[in-house]
């Protein structure tokens, strides 16, 4: 029982990253049908910004979080403006190939400018150490990140349900042309959505650095695949569903490995795709209802 509980608590850290990425992912997915495979690279750029602030310049951690958000937002908006906007409305497959191309460009540029090796990430002092709950170990950093993600999630749900911007987002996701003809500035709403989703990726990037202690150029690949599957499971466009599905995927993946014989640990990437195929075959609309909610 303790083993099971320990596994679940251990996967909360990665779960938070996947949940944040999936929430950002599902918003652009639901809004303009964009399958943003470059989201993982937006995440990676945020992590590198935080790495420069924390490890090389040795500045305080709140500045690192702020700069990671700024870096992610700048890259996210640049990608939207230069690559996705010119082809908006030309089908999901075109958008998918463009996203793939952009993610290759950003990842390989990072490898070119820096290199592909792991880069150590300084963890701030107050996040070091553990809490003991009986025999279960809880890392302070995991708890901090989990609570922050919960707060972010509540704010996000409030934003989408009750504010003017959120209502605009929902109406665009139902019918873009109708929203436009009613005088809504869809361009502005799309940019706001990109800013929110990139900012979530930026915070996820700092969490990744704290949890794993290092960043590298290919870190976005694994995370974005998990986030994509989480957004499909949660129902496309459903932010709360994506967050819950992100945690489900991380915990499920960890338990899958924990109860498998040790020489099959390499099969970890299979779990996500098995879940993906089962969901798409038996419940294609996802576990929760679709459209931005």
């Amino acid at each position: 029982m303790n083993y099971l509980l320990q596994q679940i608590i251990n996967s909360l850290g990665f779960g938070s990253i996947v949940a944040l990425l999936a929430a950002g992912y599902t918003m652009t997915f639901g809004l303009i049908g964009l399958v943003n495979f470059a989201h993982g690279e937006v995440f990676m750029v945020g992590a590198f910004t935080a790495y420069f602030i924390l490890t090389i310049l040795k500045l305080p951690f709140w500045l690192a979080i702020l700069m990671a958000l700024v870096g992610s937002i700048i890259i996210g908006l640049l990608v939207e403006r230069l690559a996705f906007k010119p082809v908006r409305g030309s089908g999901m497959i075109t958008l998918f190939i463009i996203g793939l191309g952009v993610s290759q460009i950003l990842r390989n540029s990072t490898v070119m400018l820096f290199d592909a090796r792991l880069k150590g990430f300084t963890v701030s002092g107050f996040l070091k150490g553990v809490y003991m709950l009986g025999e279960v170990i809880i890392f302070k950093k995991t708890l901090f990140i989990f609570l922050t993600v919960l707060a972010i999630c509540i704010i996000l749900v409030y934003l989408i349900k009750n504010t003017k911007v959120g209502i605009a987002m929902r109406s665009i996701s139902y019918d873009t042309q109708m929203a436009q003809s009613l005088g809504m500035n869809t361009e502005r709403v799309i940019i706001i959505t990109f800013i929110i989703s990139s900012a979530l990726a930026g915070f996820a990037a700092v969490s990744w650095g704290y949890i794993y202690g290092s960043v590298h150029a290919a870190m976005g690949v694994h995370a974005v695949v998990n986030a994509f599957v989480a957004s499909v499971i949660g129902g496309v466009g459903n932010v709360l569903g994506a967050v819950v599905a992100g945690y489900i995927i991380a915990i499920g993946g960890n338990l899958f490995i924990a109860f498998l014989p040790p020489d099959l640990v390499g099969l970890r990437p299979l779990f996500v795709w098995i879940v993906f195929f089962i969901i798409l075959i038996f419940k294609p609309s996802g576990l929760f209802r679709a459209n931005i909610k």
Partner: protein
Amino acid sequence: MEYMKRSNFIIKYVAGISVIIFILFLMERLLSGFWLTLFMLFGINIILAISLNITNGWIGFFSVGHGGIMLAGAYAAAFFTLPVFFKEGILDLKLPSFILHTQLAFLPALLIGGIVGTVVGIILVLPALRLRGFYFCAGTLGFNIIMETIAENTNGPMGLRQFLPYTNIWWVWGIAILVIYITWMVKKSYIGRAFIAIGKDPDLAEHMGINLLKYKLYAFGLSAFFTALGGILWVHLILNLFPKAFNLILVFEVVAMIVIGGMGSITGSIIGAAIITFFSDILAPIEEGFSLFGFNVPSMLGLMTVLIGVLLVVILIKKPDGIMGEKEISLGFFKKFLRTKQT
């Protein structure tokens, strides 16, 4: 009259084949080292691009999982072409003994690999039954990762080594020209028109009496067979099999070929293969850094993938149909072109 026509036909074929053999013979004599390898890589890229075009361009199921098919075919062929003492010794493979103790020539191994690839490719039809459009695309992405993971966990992440250099210019270009010829004939036939009809509108095609399942099976089987052949030739050219090498970056290059060349066009695929081969292999030495007139250009690994990505994005934004669109360059095309010039 009928007799004359048939003899004309035969003369055309004999002349065509002898010209091709002469060119290949000349190439074999003239080229060596880097340029010979490059010429063979160009042929392999043509095979991969044309076979991917069958599923992605014609029947409209955008697959990014062909790396998995290549991997399966290459593994199956490698189990038969590797020398027996390597299989038992350094590589320490855990295989049934009848595979462990046989070593076949290249042609039977090629056929076995092709058949295994076809079987794996037909597995891809299963998601194609339920998923459409983008979801199929994501499913094949998962298929690629699943195949890669399984390969890494059967023989370790280092894969296989100690291949015999079977691939030569005759194998590569013989198969490439066969693939071009077969796909050209298929495109002109009833089957090819059925493929393209499915790609344009699956529901309408079904109403016209086209059996969707049957033609999906044909398309995926044909595509997977050629892709597996391409994978086997590639592995026996670079002489090692590394499961990570079949990941999304390889598939991305092949996708870039058909998107740049034009989806659904055979000549477009060939042009795309030429462009990507030029980028990823001729310009590759630049990545390692060099000195030009006393300036030291530092090494920039990954530069070529960046350039291919930029090219792909620019083509998709400025000319979404690619260079050729769905048109083909053939002899008739030239004749029509000249005729319109004269009048």
